């Protein structure tokens, strides 16, 4: 590798309090179209170090479809994906909760071919956060897949539950604790 030719990355800055002007989309929450038979809502709060909900945050999600296909040119199977599946969700927290309508993703292998449990990657942005934080939501009602997941297995036992979305009336609940005793596990990606 010729490090001399590499360009240094542009630094991150906070989205600030007025993020909605630039980052709100009417269809943001819809990873899949409304009416998709297997669709579920993933909802939750983003909570600060004092236990208060952060109402000026933005949550973005990214995942594969139910068959493990990504809506991305790097995935050779992307052409097989139904037109309604975007893979990407975006929701602010002005109502107290974020919420995205999606499907439970399929299982995709990691780099060494080990099958991962179904998971959704989340990026969280907010005023007061100079860089996003990234975490993963797994599904609490998939204990066997979770037990074999190569990423979850690197997470200390007592913190693993912070990565579990729990069944709710219309899907799953996944709160993100930015700081504090119940702090969510975040990842360097």
């Amino acid at each position, binding site marked *: 590798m010729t490090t001399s030719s590499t360009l240094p990355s542009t630094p991150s800055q906070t989205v600030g309090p007025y993020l909605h002007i630039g980052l709100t989309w009417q269809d943001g929450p819809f990873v899949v179209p409304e009416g998709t038979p297997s669709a579920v809502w993933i909802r939750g709060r983003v909570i600060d170090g004092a236990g208060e909900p952060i109402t000026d945050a933005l949550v973005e999600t990214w995942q594969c479809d139910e068959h493990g296909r990504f809506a991305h040119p790097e995935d050779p199977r992307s052409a097989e994906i139904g037109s309604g599946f975007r893979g*990407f969700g975006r929701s602010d927290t002005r109502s107290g909760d974020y919420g995205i309508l999606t499907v439970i993703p399929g299982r995709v292998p990691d780099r060494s071919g080990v099958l991962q449990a179904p998971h959704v990657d989340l990026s969280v942005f907010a005023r007061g956060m100079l860089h996003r934080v990234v975490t993963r939501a797994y599904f609490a009602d998939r204990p066997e897949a979770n037990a074999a997941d190569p990423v979850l297995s690197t997470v200390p036992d007592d913190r693993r539950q912070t990565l579990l979305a729990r069944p709710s009336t219309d899907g799953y609940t996944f709160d993100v604790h930015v700081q504090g005793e119940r702090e969510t596990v975040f990842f360097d990606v």
Partner: protein
Amino acid sequence: MSARHQRTLALPAYRPDPDGTHPPLDSPDYRSTALRHPLRQPLTLPQSATEITGPVLGEGRIGERDNDLTVQHPGEPVGQRIVVHGRVLDGDGRAVPNSLVEIWQANAGGRYRHDADVWPSPLDPNFDGAGRTLTDEHGRYEFTTIKPGAYPWKNHHNAWRPAHIHFSLFGRSLTQRLVTQMYFPDDPLFDQDPIFNSVPEAARNRLVSRFDMNRTTDHWALGFEFDIVLRGREATPFEDDDHDH
């Protein structure tokens, strides 16, 4: 290169940014970070297919006038008309083509069109302050807009944000996602701004646009150039066992 190849991706890897690139989440001079930064170290997530892919957006999402913030209303907004342009590159200098760029900003008087912005500076009926565009095949983007004003905030007594435009970039993967702010050269407000100064000193100038006489148009608009660099890929793409036979 068989049936199994279809089930796994040829996974590139994105280089981590070295220390000294991004602001620490715990930046006490910016007071709102106090309760909004994790206290524990992040864990390392080996990049899998989920991380090296990402939303490729834009088709059908960009309106014809979305990259000109001065023509979104019947009248023209007040203020200094500017053209902000540049390239989105990766860390190896390669263009990032066909990639969504979103911006938002205050008006010429430093006021945002937002419920939460209530300081005594007028809204401009002809300015919303939101734009989006796609980079072209060479990674180039361009916006026409109004130079935003500085604005006060409550971080400390007499705190003013230097003029800035918020930028949101997707690149081609989750690992490249970036939200940042572009500043203007020689702003006298830099010294007292904890958000600008949260960036490690050696990296701060990467957030400052360059005045561009070549793109300044006679009797029309001042030009500013702002290139954005997203993470590059490791030189040797990862090869998984399936490709070895």
